[in-house]
């Protein structure tokens, strides 16, 4: 019986992997051939000391580049491990092309491992499990939270997404001391890459509170101490922060950082609440985007595109389904020990709420990156529960109607997953055009900036390489919504 169950598990897991493979391979291929953009990349590499002056000025022992990378006051954001990755790759290889290659490997491996880890943890054991797993993969790939994090080379959150998956897997496993060490280490690394790594803290606390087998008191306390120390460190070095560090969206429009500071600077907290709510809204409803209610505005102006309707409707349907499953699970298991599902409800709420809180200063789709991992897992359980419930209906008409609704939901998310891959391709085309048509202007504009020009000219070849354009005709692109 157990052997049969294992065999079934292997079969359906393999089937899920095979079904997800074309999406995953297509995405990885698109990311692999996408050129690094001029803006952002050259500046980031310059900051990380790539291709420095061959005759640097003497210093007191600590490389000034490293000092700058770890300085909490140099920038309003603090992502030392991201800059350190460039620094280490450059110093380890001494070659610009090798640095770019290894960085790309890290980027592609992050997204590939995220999907594989998700399927590994879900390990479907039945046809319905398998069906729900295909939806979970599509949800993960189709959310704005992942899509915006696929922008090369901005891997700060993308690299942390498989980490949150690993941490969740370890929290759900029986406690082993080295698991705790891994949980603490991954939390530190994720935070070091970007502030969004802090989402792991409430997730770990929630897991400990709900008695997850792998959430030891020591690991939770260690993470809590480290996070509090990190927050104290950051808040003690905030120095010259403006009330708003980036442009913010508001309603159907937006405000520059300066305008927002002058308008709301005296009491920015309502605006902070709006920004946080916007990030939560984007995770759950794909609206607003960057704080702007673009889909509603386009509906009002009768300019709405098919993909916008699909995003809003599929997100709303999924959120409703996840809420139904959460309430049902909560009620069903009231008074019983915490289960995988009830813990997941708490972790999902914690991750979404903390992602929103971290977006208090300005809302961006990418800030939902950590939370969408939990949304995808929750989608798996919700679809599976709905499928099992539908199968129990006595009326064939109701069964068929409900099953068709689930199919429409699954189809809508598959379209979104395709749109995500297309967005990577379309962005790559834009970046390629920028390289071939904008290079000379940059060269002239940055005349005299020797390090910048060394990096720029060294990267030009990868910007010139052919890129994989969209696979779809224009009419299909209006449904997929891949335009970045």
């Amino acid at each position, binding site marked *: 019986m157990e052997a049969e169950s294992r065999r079934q598990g292997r079969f359906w897991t393999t089937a899920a992997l095979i079904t997800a493979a074309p999406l995953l391979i297509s995405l990885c291929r698109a990311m692999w051939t996408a050129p690094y953009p001029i803006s952002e990349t050259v500046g980031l590499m310059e900051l990380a000391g790539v291709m420095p002056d061959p005759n640097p000025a003497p210093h007191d022992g600590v490389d000034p580049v490293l000092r700058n990378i770890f300085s909490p006051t140099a920038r309003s954001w603090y992502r030392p491990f991201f800059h350190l990755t460039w620094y280490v790759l450059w110093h380890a290889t001494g070659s610009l092309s090798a640095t770019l290659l290894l960085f790309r490997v890290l980027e592609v491996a992050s997204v590939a491992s995220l999907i594989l880890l998700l399927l590994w943890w879900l390990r479907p054991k039945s046809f319905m499990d398998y069906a729900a797993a295909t939806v979970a993969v599509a949800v993960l790939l189709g959310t704005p939270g992942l899509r915006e994090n696929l922008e090369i080379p901005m891997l700060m959150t993308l690299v942390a997404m498989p980490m949150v998956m690993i941490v969740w897997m370890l929290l759900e496993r029986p406690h082993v001391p080295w698991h705790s060490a891994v949980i603490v280490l991954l939390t530190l690394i994720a935070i070091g890459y970007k502030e969004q790594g802090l989402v792991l803290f409430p997730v770990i606390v929630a897991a400990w509170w709900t008695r997850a087998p792998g959430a030891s008191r020591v690991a939770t306390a260690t993470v809590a101490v480290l996070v509090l120390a990190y927050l104290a460190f950051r808040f003690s070095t905030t120095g010259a922060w403006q009330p708003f560090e980036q442009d913010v969206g508001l309603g159907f429009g937006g405000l520059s950082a300066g305008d927002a500071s002058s308008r709301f600077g005296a009491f920015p907290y309502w605006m902070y609440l709006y920004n946080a709510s916007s990030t939560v809204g984007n995770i759950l409803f794909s609206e607003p985007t960057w704080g702007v209610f673009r889909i509603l505005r386009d509906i009002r102006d009768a300019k709405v595109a098919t993909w916008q309707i699909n995003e809003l409707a599929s997100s709303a349907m999924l959120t409703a389904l996840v809420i139904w499953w959460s309430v049902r699970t909560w009620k069903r298991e009231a008074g019983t020990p915490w289960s995988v599902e009830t813990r997941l409800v708490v972790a999902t709420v914690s991750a979404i709420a903390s992602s929103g809180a971290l977006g208090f200063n300005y809302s961006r789709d990418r800030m939902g990156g950590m939370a969408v991992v939990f949304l995808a897992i929750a989608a798996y359980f919700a679809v599976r529960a709905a499928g099992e419930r539908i199968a129990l209906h006595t009326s064939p008409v109701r069964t068929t109607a409900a099953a068709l609704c689930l199919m429409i939901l699954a189809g809508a998310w*598959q379209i979104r997953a395709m749109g995500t891959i297309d967005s990577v391709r379309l962005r790559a085309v834009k970046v390629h055009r920028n390289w071939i048509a904008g290079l000379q202007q940059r060269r002239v504009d940055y005349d005299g900036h020797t390090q910048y020009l060394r990096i720029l000219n060294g990267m030009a070849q990868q910007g010139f390489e052919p890129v994989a354009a969209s696979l779809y005709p224009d009419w299909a692109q209006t449904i997929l919504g891949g335009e970045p």
Partner: protein
Amino acid sequence: MMANASAAATQLSSAPSSRDLMVPLLVTAPAVLVACLLVVLEVNRVMEERLRPPMDISSFAGALRSGDYEQAFEYLRDTGSDANNPIPFRDSELTGNREVLVTPLLIAVATRVDNTVRVLMGAGVEIDAPGNRFALCLANQLGDTTIAGIIAHDGGPAAKTVTCPAASPSPQAPLLAFVE
């Protein structure tokens, strides 16, 4: 025993009926469809890339004429051609249907596609090379301040030394006035 998602599954005790199968079948259908579609599209793309014939000089001239700057760039990249070399070019509007040897930059200026000019400037065009010397003059004569600005900016100091001939482009064949 390792906890995983399936450990929380509600076990259905009965053998699967057609209704049990219908729901997962319908939910899976879009995923399978998308997987198959992607395989077909990706394979098709790879085949297209392999079977695409290499560009020749006439398609390069055609790309310059139509303002397809990506294709023009592709030609320069794939053939390693010097962007300063004149190419044979004939067009009813720009040369009065006469075939002339003209540099890509002059064609780009005459067609007034700023991105083509940018591509050529980035591809190593020397603004003081014989066939290119009057590109800025042509842009000014055509009143295209954007393109004139690009040449003046991207051309560097050489762009400031250009002396224009006393030629005024004919509306029938504007390019001919500046072909050397």
